[in-house]
């Protein structure tokens, strides 16, 4: 079985050959063109040149339907599932078993889900609503969907981005199982660890071009330098923290969403001057809401948030910003910037009405431009002109603009949600350095991240959130396995006990695990 690609815009003369029954990793940074390429392969986009060959025969896909008919299945990065459908309906969609005059045969759809589900040991209820399922389960529904159409080639687009380490391990074993049954897998990722764990062959893509093949035995540093095009340091250099007095306190914070579900559940912690607290956890466990509540986008139902002894709850966002909080929101494109505004305008979104940028009703254009140019220098932002709309910048440079704005004032607290999401390795290095510098300047920092590498790179302490609660706060030397267990809801002391090998069963009670976490971390390491 051979597939060959020719030329198109996002992908420049890419040739790729997938052998039957192999796991082929496609490694590249965000925006390197991996997903575009796979969407062409799946018939979602038209190729502007080149051809696809299956078993040496050229095929042409006018839409995903053709690709599916040719035996290609795809699990998209953002799941292609209708939230209000049941699992059976989702799997049936497009290939509906019917009875009578076009009525759905849901019994058959359920049976199909159960059959595939039991073949691979998935525990999926065909009648569950998609929106009620955790992401790991949703991903399995996607895999069931592809398999129910007899996919011989399965494309997994960044499948691990949304999973806990444990779920990732399970996915890897599912992939192995599929491979044994003869399915070829194209595994798209930018995570080096996983590639080395599972891939049979690796193709590295950079800026739409294939820059090389690599073997799974290559070291991570080798793979990273191939991916980025230069040698990079994968670890953030930083001095040990020297925390001062704890100035920021969150106590018994409880937040509910619009449908009255508790999303942040009785959370208490404190952050000291000159310290980075990383909030780790799988996406959707309350971290977003926690950060938004601190800045004031959401009001808590219960609890208090104090900065330097002043209560923040109940105050407006503007007044909280005024008390010295810098906030980098999770979704840069919708909350962090105003895409149509100029770069220099985006740099003063929080201080546009203050001296020296404004006087009376007027904005002082010269001052704003000067300040913007200074920040461009300081933050090494690559741009044409500060008058251009910020949408003309790459994600990394946009994030630098956001950072330059939020770090541009004297801060009493710095919160960043997913500060490096979607950034290239070079920008990640820069962002991390700036955050560490802010810490060293004595600002308490809170970093919310779902990337464990980032958590380890920055954290002086790690708070793990699961299902709205802080499962435990542990030291930065806690093992990856223990953090993974905590991200799945296992209390800190049990997680540490389970992974350190000492069979200390029944240690601690759930109600006191927050107390014992930091000390037991030290004991166990």
């Amino acid at each position, binding site marked *: 079985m051979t597939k060959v690609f020719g030329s198109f815009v996002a992908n420049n003369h890419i040739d790729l050959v997938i052998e039957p029954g192999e796991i082929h990793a496609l490694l590249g940074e965000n925006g390197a063109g991996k997903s575009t390429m796979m969407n062409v392969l799946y018939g979602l986009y038209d190729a502007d040149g080149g051809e696809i060959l299956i078993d040496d025969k050229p095929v042409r896909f006018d839409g995903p339907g053709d690709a599916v008919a040719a035996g290609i299945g795809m699990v*998209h990065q953002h799941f*292609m599932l209708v939230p209000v459908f049941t699992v059976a309906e989702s799997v049936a969609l497009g290939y*509906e078993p019917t009875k009578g005059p076009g009525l*759905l045969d849901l019994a058959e759809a359920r049976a199909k889900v159960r059959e595939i589900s039991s073949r691979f040991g998935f525990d999926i209820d065909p009648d569950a609503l998609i929106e009620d399922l955790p992401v790991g389960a949703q991903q399995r529904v996607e895999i069931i969907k592809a398999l129910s159409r007899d996919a011989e080639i399965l494309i997994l687009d960044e499948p691990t981005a949304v999973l806990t380490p444990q779920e990732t391990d399970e996915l890897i074993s599912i992939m192995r199982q599929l491979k044994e049954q003869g399915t070829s897998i194209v595994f798209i990722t930018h995570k080096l660890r996983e590639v080395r764990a599972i891939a049979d062959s690796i193709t590295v893509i950079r800026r739409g071009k294939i820059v090389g093949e690599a073997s799974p035995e290559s070291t991570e540093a080798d793979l990273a330098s191939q991916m980025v095009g230069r040698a990079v340091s994968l670890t953030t250099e930083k001095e040990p923290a020297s925390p001062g007095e704890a100035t920021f306190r969150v106590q018994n914070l409880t937040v509910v969403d619009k449908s009255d579900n508790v999303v942040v559940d009785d959370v208490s912690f404190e952050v000291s001057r000159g310290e980075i607290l990383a909030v780790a956890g799988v996406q959707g466990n309350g971290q977003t809401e926690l950060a938004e509540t601190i800045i004031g986008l959401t009001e808590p139902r219960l609890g208090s948030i104090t900065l330097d002894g002043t209560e923040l709850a109940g105050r407006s966002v503007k007044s909280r910003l005024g008390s010295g909080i810098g906030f980098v929101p999770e979704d840069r494109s919708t909350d962090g910037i105003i895409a149509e505004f100029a770069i220099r305008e985006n740099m003063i979104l929080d201080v546009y009405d203050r001296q020296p940028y404004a006087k009376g009703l007027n904005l002082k254009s010269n001052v704003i431009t000067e300040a913007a140019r200074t920040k461009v220098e300081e933050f090494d932002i690559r741009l044409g002109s500060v008058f251009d709309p910020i949408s003309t910048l790459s994600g990394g440079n946009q994030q630098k603009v956001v950072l330059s704005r939020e770090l541009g004032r004297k801060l009493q607290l710095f919160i960043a949600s997913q500060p490096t999401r979607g950034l290239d390795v070079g920008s990640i290095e820069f962002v991390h350095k700036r955050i560490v510098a802010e810490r060293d300047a004595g600002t308490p920092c809170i970093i919310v991240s779902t990337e464990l590498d980032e958590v380890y790179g920055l954290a002086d302490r790690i708070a793990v959130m699961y299902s709205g609660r802080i499962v435990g*706060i542990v030291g930065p030397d806690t093992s990856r396995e223990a953090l993974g267990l905590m991200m799945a809801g296992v209390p800190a002391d049990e997680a540490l006990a389970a992974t350190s090998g000492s069979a200390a069963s029944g240690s601690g009670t759930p109600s006191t695990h927050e*107390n014992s976490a930091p000390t037991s971390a030290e004991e166990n390491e």
Partner: protein
Amino acid sequence: MTAHTLDATPAGQSKALAPIIWKFPVVYSILALVSLVFFGLIGRDGQTTFRIATEGDFFAIPDIVVPATAAGLVLSLILVVMAAASIWFALRRVSLASWFPMLFGVLFVLSFLAWAGGGSGGVIPMTTLLAGALALSVPLIFGAMCGLVGERSGIINIAIEGQLLAGAFLAAVVASVVQNPYAGLLAAPIAGALVAVVLTFFAVKYWVNQIIIGVVLNVLVVGLTSFLYSTVLTENAELWNARQRLPNLPIPLLSDIPILGRVLFDQNILVYLMYLVVIALQILVFRSKWGLRMRAVGEHPKAADTVGIRVNATRVRNTIMAGAIAGLGGAFFTVGSGLAFGKEMSAGQGYIALAAMILGKWNPKGALLAALLFGFSKSLGNTLQSIGTPVANELLLMLPYIVTVLAVAGFVGRVRPPAAAGVPYVK
């Protein structure tokens, strides 16, 4: 390393209680008090007659005659008890079953009727009231079905008003020219579908904002039909705009059931078609391949695309078909009621149909009930006007719209429209 410990709180004690929702108990209490004071305590003397039977009924049921004040008092006391119960449940954060507001509404209306009929020794013709409610609901129901098929496919259709009007117009003209009301019935869906063709053309092909194009279409249809009415139709009304009426086709046995039989089963074919459309949609939307695909393109078009469903083709097809349904509803204004076409005779019913769709949460069954509620409130206004009550006529005419606003604002709660409704699908 500094030990950063926290005050541990026992797990489970921290559950934040949801705030008590006072909206409903307050509304119930006010209505109960209004009923008690106005219809009960300072009610009107005299007796109110509820006329249930009509002449020629198989079963002759005698009129029910009640003393107005006593009836108002008894009903009001029940309402007060129900309001108290709603407060009791609210305090315990128990949400009420859906029959509760319905029963409350029915009792309140009865209490009001007892009061309205009193004094003048009024007779409340129950059959007329209910038959009127159904008749006034028919275009609303067709319109709401049209709206929900469109929105569930991802196209917001504000042009229901225009589709109803176009249907009414073409039905009247064709029926008049052919001199057969059934010909009008066949023509009406074409008019509605044509309006939908224009809507989808701009919405799907050029991604024009669907609200804007819908509103523009409504104005366009009003202008076009009014122009043709004053130039062509009035020139030779005998030829172009003569009254034609779909005959009533009573269903044997069923139409002999007291009250409801006459109301539901002694109707013209358009009403029976309406029953059919609602039942068919209720089944098809949730249990057919067509419905599954329709909901998929309306909720998550890209997901539908990835399984080979042609999103835009599906949307266009469904919206045009829905337009035909609305056109059929428009026919009720003319051939369905035996009237000639009149300028702007749909009179905003298309917008009320939209409200019914939302109140019915995009479900055929729910939209049906909501449309019946609006139809009933309008019929109530008409009936009260004809028997003469102390309430000003203008207020009675406002009744359906007050009910619409209150229902959509207060009792809908949080509804979730199809996620991709109004969003063009661009690859």
